[in-house]
């Protein structure tokens, strides 16, 4: 018994000793490791982090990933002649990023230099010659730009941007047909590419004489401030033509959802809807371009301001164009289209009537779905009353169609008293004229009352 007790005592004592030893050890370790910890923390804050991992991301063939991730450091590679292919690609990416930086700062010559360096390091990357091409375009070296685009396309025949840039370059060297071909190619790969659509429209319509150097393409990778520069400053042309061109340029840059680019006769300015972040002051000079060159140059200036820094916003905002009101828009495919067209035609009830006529009344529920707004409904009722009635045309099909629109009763609730009285009028009218069958009229009454 005592032996056991003694043993237990011994164990307890040894445990206690172990514990104390461990603690002492721990404390000294703690101080050491804290020093190391602080060093590491400091190291992580300094800019020269050992960043780049040498190993590629799984499944990635090239170091294309380096294109996207910002380069936070530039590890100093030793310039030995035995740099591996991989390291070369990394170096190329660094040079490319530098080039991109300069491009953004509009220092195109330097950007070109860096892109050239990158191209030497990585001759297999199709992006690099394309980047150099756009930089060359910026400094109007169109022939070289086209060559670079050719290089890029040799490396990657499906590189859309290269086609786009080659189109621009070609156009500016007078190879209009070939430029159009390139844009066609872009559109065949990316049918929804707005910038390309614009370019294509413009090129196919514009005059075949002196090439313009307006840079209207929007390069997606650079958020650079774009300047619209008029290379041939309007001296060669007639004043009228001169006026037309800047207007065209203006309108094209402004209007991206343009469907009818016939902008030659801007007589009215249709006010921009409220969701556009453009100062209203921009509109005025455009309208006033009828006279002196001064004014047109005025536009040039405003455009410079205007397009600076707002490129991206413009891109993403759907704006109403300064459109002529001579043309009735085609029948709408959805409610938004209808609403836009309808509000545009507000000035002329005749046009609204014509527009409405294009639509099949039975298709109204489908067109409006659940988006019909009270104002629009009010407008339609007004037109129905005014124009249809005057021309003694059937109103019932329209009312039937409207009555079948979802939640129409909710919409009618909010009609103003004028609009309500219009509706009443229409309802009594169809009753008195005995349009359609009793059944139909009853349904309409039910829904719209």
């Amino acid at each position, binding site marked *: 018994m005592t032996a056991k007790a003694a043993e237990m005592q011994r164990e307890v004592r040894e445990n206690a000793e172990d514990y104390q030893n461990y603690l002492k050890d721990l404390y000294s370790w703690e101080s050491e490791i804290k020093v190391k910890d602080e060093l590491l923390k400091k190291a992580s804050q300094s800019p020269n982090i050992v960043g780049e991992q040498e190993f590629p*991301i799984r499944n990635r063939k090239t170091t294309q*990933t380096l294109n996207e991730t910002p380069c936070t450091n530039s590890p100093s590679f030793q310039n030995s002649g035995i740099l591996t292919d991989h390291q070369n690609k990394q170096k190329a990416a660094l040079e490319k990023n530098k080039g991109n930086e300069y491009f953004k700062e509009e220092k195109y010559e330097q950007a070109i230099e860096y892109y050239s360096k990158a191209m030497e390091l990585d001759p297999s990357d199709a992006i690099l010659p394309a980047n150099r091409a756009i930089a060359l375009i910026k400094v109007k070296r169109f022939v070289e730009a086209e060559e670079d685009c050719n290089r890029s396309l040799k490396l990657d025949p499906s590189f859309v941007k290269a086609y786009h840039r080659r189109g621009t370059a070609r156009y500016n060297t007078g190879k209009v047909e070939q430029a159009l071909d390139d844009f066609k190619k872009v559109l065949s790969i990316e049918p929804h590419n707005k910038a390309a659509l614009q370019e294509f429209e413009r090129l196919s319509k514009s005059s075949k004489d002196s090439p313009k150097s307006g840079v209207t393409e929007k390069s997606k990778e650079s958020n650079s401030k774009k300047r619209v520069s008029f290379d041939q400053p309007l001296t060669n042309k007639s004043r009228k033509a001169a006026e037309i061109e800047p207007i065209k340029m203006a309108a094209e840059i402004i209007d991206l959802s343009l469907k009818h680019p016939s902008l030659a006769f801007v007589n009215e300015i249709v006010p921009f809807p409220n969701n556009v972040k453009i100062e209203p002051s921009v509109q005025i000079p455009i309208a006033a371009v009828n006279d002196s060159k001064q004014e047109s140059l005025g536009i040039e200036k405003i455009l410079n301001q205007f397009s600076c820094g707002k490129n991206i916003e413009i891109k993403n905002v759907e704006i109403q164009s300064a459109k002529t009101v001579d043309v009735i828009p085609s029948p709408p495919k959805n409610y938004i289209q209808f609403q836009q067209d309808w509000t545009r035609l507000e000035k002329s009830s005749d046009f609204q009537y014509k527009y409405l006529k294009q639509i099949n009344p039975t298709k109204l529920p489908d067109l409006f779905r659940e988006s019909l707004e009270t104002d629009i409904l009010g407008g339609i009722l007004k037109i129905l009353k005014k124009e249809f009635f005057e021309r003694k045309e059937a109103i019932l099909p329209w009312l039937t169609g409207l009555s079948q629109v979802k939640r129409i009763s909710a919409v009618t609730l909010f009609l103003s008293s004028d609009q309500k009285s219009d509706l009443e009028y229409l309802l009594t009218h169809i009753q008195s004229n005995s349009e359609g069958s009793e059944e139909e009229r009853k349904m309409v009454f039910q829904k719209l009352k």
Partner: protein
Amino acid sequence: MTNSRILILNEKSVNFTLFCVKWIPCSARLAVLGSHPKGTGVWQIYSLSKGQLELLTEVEKPFAMKCGTFAASSFENRLMATGDFNGNLNLWDLEKPNSAVYSASAHTSIINDIDGVGGINVGKGAAELATCSRDGCVKIWDARQKDRPVAILEPEEGQTRHDCWTVAFGGAYSSSDRLLAAGFDNGDLKIFDLKTMKVQWETNVGNGICSIEFDRKDIEQNKLTVCTLDSRIFVFDLTTKHPNKGYAFARQKAHKSTVWSGTHLPQNRDVFMTTGGNGSLCLWQYEYPSKRSAKATDGSPEGVAGNLKMIHEVGVAEQPITSFNWNADKLGLAASTSFDQTLRILAITKLNCL
């Protein structure tokens, strides 16, 4: 001379459910992850000084955090990768906790476990993270690729999806070799060879697998420790594969409850600690057999399992101990968390004698 013993250095109570504890590499700090009762996530950073825990920072996040690891970060940045209850994977810089360095909607359901390789000098090749989730998928991420995983391992269409409860990297002894082991709730164990992107081996251990770990991440496959429900521990010897029987394993019962985790000592690959649902800790040592492979009856070689020797067992809590982490810089220093909202700092003595 006494044996190794598990001693409790310090205990700290917190007011939220703790799920995971990890030492911050090359420091005397540790991070605990968990969730508040209201469902928001929280992590706390403690510093160990003179054996006492000091709270350095506490950060709250919208979703409860389930698991975390530093294993894919470099020593310089020591970013913490976390998986939360909402299926999001985030990489955090602990100095700037307001916005994640990397963020991805990794899974549609809770991320059960996360593991990393290639960072903090463990494992060769690119630094990658693996997450597994209740949605049955295992996804591999590289912080350089945004939003999308670099690999997805999921059951085929039509097959039943089992919760994947745990993942572990291993076999990263060269820049192209890598293995990933995954354990599922029905006892499925799969080892994927990431070089060939194929299942290298699979088996079923009969009970849901709570924890799985290769004894080392950066060597050719050697041993794999599997902890399951129903108080079982398996250690597979991965050096010899029999064409039919697969790998040999040693099996033990311990803790009289679910074995929640099994973690190998960073300084000795044959020593590991298991934690149990009854609040106990068990220190084991694997003893190799004299010959690790032998000829089976059918002529082909098969592995011979060793045996597991329990070195010390101690009960430290009344509730399951769900997470345990050895400190890689100090031999014997460890931290554990349990469902009784307590963080415990442990010292395991005499490990250098094993």
